[in-house]
C-alpha cells in the first residue's frame, strides 16, 4: 500500500531552523522563518518583482543548479533559492562574481522584498 504522491509538505517532518532575532523575515507564502534584520547587508538590490534585500545568512532554503547570469552589475554565477517548505522561489544566492568589485556578494543571498514578510521577533534572553 503506497501513498499517492503528496505535494504538501508537513512541518512536522522537514527540519526547519530558526535564526531568531528581533525582526524576523519569513516566507510570505507559508510563513517559514528565513532570516532576520541582523543578517541584512543592503536593501538596494532589484529582483524580478522589484526591490530585493541582500542577506548574509539565510536558512531553510533549497538551491537550484548553478546558472550563468548577466546582471546590471556584471556577469555572475548564481543559484536560485526557494522556500524549503512551500517551494516558492524567493531569490538567488551568489556563488561567483567575475568582477572583483562584486566579489563581496559571494555566498550572500538575495531575497525579493515582495516575497517575504517582516515580523516582530524577540531578543534572546540568555545572557551567557
Amino acid at each position: 500500500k503506497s501513498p499517492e504522491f503528496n505535494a504538501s509538505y508537513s512541518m512536522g517532518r522537514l527540519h526547519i531552523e530558526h535564526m531568531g532575532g528581533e525582526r524576523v523575515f519569513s516566507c510570505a507564502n507559508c510563513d517559514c522563518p528565513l532570516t532576520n534584520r541582523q543578517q541584512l547587508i543592503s536593501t538596494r538590490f532589484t529582483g524580478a518583482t522589484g526591490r530585493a534585500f541582500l542577506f548574509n545568512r539565510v536558512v531553510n532554503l533549497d538551491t537550484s543548479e548553478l546558472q550563468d547570469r548577466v546582471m546590471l552589475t556584471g556577469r555572475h554565477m548564481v543559484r536560485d533559492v526557494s522556500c524549503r517548505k512551500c517551494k516558492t522561489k524567493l531569490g538567488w544566492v551568489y556563488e561567483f562574481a567575475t568582477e572583483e568589485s562584486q566579489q563581496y556578494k559571494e555566498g550572500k543571498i538575495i531575497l525579493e522584498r515582495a516575497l517575504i514578510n517582516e515580523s516582530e521577533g524577540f531578543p534572546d534572553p540568555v545572557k551567557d
Partner: protein
Amino acid sequence: LLELMENGSGCLNGSGAADSAEKAQQQQQCPAVQLSERNREAVRVIGQYLRELGLARSAEALVLEAGCPLESGAAAQFRSSVLLGDWDGAEASLASLRRALWRESSWSEIAFRLAEQRYLELLESGAHIAALCVLRGKLTPLQLSPDRLHRLSGLIMCSGPEELRQLSGWSGAAGGTRQALLDSVEQFFPPSVMLPPKRLSVLLDQAVRAQVSRCRHHNTSLSPDQLTLLADHSCQAAASVPSVCSQVLDAHQDEVHVCQFSPNGRFLATGGRDCVAIVWLVEAAANPPGAPRVRHHLTLRIGEERGGVAWLAWSPDSRLLLACAAEEATEVIVWEAETGDCIKKLKHRDEDSLTTAAWLPDSNHFVVGGNRGHFYLCSVDVGFEKAWDFIRVVALATRREDDGGTAVLAADTFARIRRYRFDTMQDETLFREDGPVMSMSISQDETLLAVCVASAGVHLWDLRLRVCRRRLHGLTHGAYLLHASIGGPNQDFVASGSHDARVCVWHRGCQAGDGAQQHLLPDKLSGHGGLVSCVSWNPRHHGMLASASDDCTVRIWLPASLAAAAQAASADGTGPGGAGFSSNGCCSSTVSKHQPPPLL
C-alpha cells in the same frame, strides 16, 4: 639486587641456612630448564598465585624445578617473620632489604608500620608494659607524623581487645592484619625484590576488562570476574542486537513520524501524517518466554487540519499519552492509554505552536514548546501553569535533580541545550552543539542525552560529567527530522533513523582494540521502503526496537535468537490488516557471529 636474590636462592619461607644447602644440592640434581627473563617472571607470578591459594607445596615444587625463586631471600625471610609474628627477625630482614628500596625515605614508614603492628598486637594480648616499650623505643624515635603517634598512644587506654579493635579500626592479629601489612609494604620495593600483591589476578582481570571493552555487542550484567578465562569474551550479537524484522505494522494510512514505547514497555504509540495516534499492546509470548509481539489496541484521532501527529510522549507511569500536532499546533491532547478516553485538551493561546513535549516525574505536570517561542509548564489537573518567555524550543526532556526538583532540558534554535527549573525559575546553559539540533532523547536512567544534530550525527552527552562522550556517525543525512533512542540494559545501545530508509544501531561502549579514536560505524537494518524518522527501544524487553517510516509502516526488530523463537511460536500471522510477519526484513548488518570454542 642480584646479590639479594642469590642470598636465598630456592628459599621459600625462610626455612633458614640449614636447609638452603640441601636445597641447593637438590637444585643441582634437577636439570634446570633454561628460562628467558619473561618466563622467569611468569613463573614467579604463578608461584605467588599458588601460594596465595594455599598450595604452598606446589609453589615450592615449582620454584625448585624452575630454579627461580619467587622473591629475594631477605624478602622471603621478612614475609615469614611477619606472618609468624617474629618481630625482631622481621626487623633484621628489613635492615638487609633497606638497600633495595625505591626511596630511602620510605624505610622509616615501613619500620613504623611494622612497629605499629607489633604495638597493637601487644596491646591486644594485654601486654601493656611491652607495648609501652615499643611505643617509646621503636615508634617515637622514627619521628614520623605526631598525629599517628598520638592516636596510637591514646589506644593504650582501651579496656580490652574489643574496644581496641573498635577504636582503631584494626581487625586484630587473627584478622588478616599481618597479611595486610605485607601487602601494604610491597609497594615500596621493586618487583624484583618483592612481587606486587596478587599480581596474576591483577593481570587476568586486566585482560578480561580489555576483552569486555572490545566486545562489540556487550550486553551482559555479569561483572568481569564472573566471565570465563577460557575464551576471549564476546557477547553474541544474535542474543542482544536487533537484526530481524519480526513484524510490520501497517495500520497507518500515511507517513509515520513518531513511535514511542511506554516506560513500562507494555504499550507502543505511533503517529504520523494521517492525524491518528495508534496505541499498540506489547505481549510477551508465554511459549517460548521472552518473544514479544505487538497487537493493535486503540486508534485515537486528532483534528484533520492539524497537519499530523508531530510528537507523542508517555507519562512516566505509562498511563497517559500526550500528542502534539505538526501544524496549527495550538492544542495538545492527553488520553488515557488503556481506555482511549480523552483526559485533556490543552490550549493556551491561538498563536501558539506546541510541537514537542515531555512529562515530569509526577505524571501530572508536563512541559510543551515550539520554535515560535512558546515554552509552557502545564498539568493535567490545572492546565496551563507557567510560561518561560522567548525561548524557541526544538526538543524537550526532563531529569530529576539531587534536591528533589525536576529540571527541564530544552534544546533551542541556537543549538544550545539548557536546563530550566520552573520551580525556582533558574536556568543554565549545559552544552552548546556545533550544528542545528533536530531532536533530543534522554536515557531511561537519566544519565545520557542523545542529541541529533543536522548533518552531523548523534552526539551522546553525559549529564553528570557534562561532557560529550561520543559522536556517532554513519547515518545518512538529509532535510528531514530524525530521532534517536538510547536503550539496552546498561544504556549501551543507541539507535536512530536515517534518510536511506535504514535503521542505524550503535553499541556505544565498544572501543577500538588499539585504543585509537575510531569512528564507530553502526549496524544498519534494511527493510523499510522510505525514510526512517523515529526509533524507540522497549525499556522492558531489551533488544526490541520499533522504527517509524515514510513508507507508512512501523517495523518491530528483534535479536535473531528471539525472532526465530517468535516466528516458530505464532502460526496465524496476526497484525492489523493481516500483514503478519514480513520475511523480507532481514538484516544486512555487518555483525560477525562469535561462537565460543567447544569444550575439549
